[in-house]
């Protein structure tokens, strides 16, 4: 992990660049696979973190609330990882359903037997 002990965040774009570099540096393969799903959420979280920093600096929010907000931002980022895992499995199921939907319709249209009632839904 890079040394961020002297980092000073002044804009969402600067923070977003650092976050992307950190994620891509940790796992190039994961980033390449999930970039399209994660980028929008990462951008929103970077903007939110900079807003929280500015609000704390200006005294609009106190330390206790800032800690709660940042804990929520961290939790949302952790959930984003879970979201990518779920969407990978959902995509696999959709591919399976797509393939066997075609086979199911083929069998149904030739034989009248519906082997996949979840996938083949003839209009009555």
């Amino acid at each position, binding site marked *: 992990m890079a040394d961020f002990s002297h980092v000073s965040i002044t804009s969402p774009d600067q923070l977003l660049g650092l976050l992307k570099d950190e994620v891509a540096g940790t796992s190039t393969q994961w980033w390449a696979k999930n970039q399209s799903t994660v980028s929008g959420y990462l951008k929103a979280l970077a903007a*939110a973190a900079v807003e929280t920093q500015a*609000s704390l600096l200006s005294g609009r929010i106190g330390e206790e609330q800032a800690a709660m907000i940042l804990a929520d931002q961290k939790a949302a980022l952790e*959930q984003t990882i879970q979201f990518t895992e779920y969407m990978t499995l959902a995509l696999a199921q959709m591919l399976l359903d797509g393939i066997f939907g075609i086979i199911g319709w083929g069998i149904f249209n030739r034989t009248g037997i519906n*082997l996949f009632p979840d996938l083949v839904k003839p209009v009555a």
Partner: protein
Amino acid sequence: MDKGRGIPRIGIAFALVLLLAACAMFAPRYDATLDLKTTGAYELVAGFAASAELGSYTEKDSFEAIAPQYANAQAQLAVAKLRAATLPTQGKAAEKARDLLVALIQGCSDRVGSFARQHAAFGIQPASGATEPMMISCDQAAKAAQAMKTGN
């Protein structure tokens, strides 16, 4: 080997493979109630976020008037979570997907709860970064609940 007896066995095996393949092996099937409840909660959440960013929640006293709407969102998410937790699955991958779906709905509920507690304790200042975690968590929960819809 008796070919006359072998063919039906192959046919039965093929049919079983097809039936197995048609099961929810990687993710649970789409559930309309789950989608309705998760999306309904997300729409309420979007309303909370918009009001907060417009400055309607800057005073903590504004919480009382909104409290029933927070309760409504949490009730919808509780139904969605129970619905997701009981979706039928086939195999470990689909069980994992179901657990992830439950976790995503729970995450949305946790962020709504945290946002409501902040509202009651401090008020919510616009552009303080408080709305985004709730919106992100609930957006992901709603997308996950709808993900299998196109498969139908």
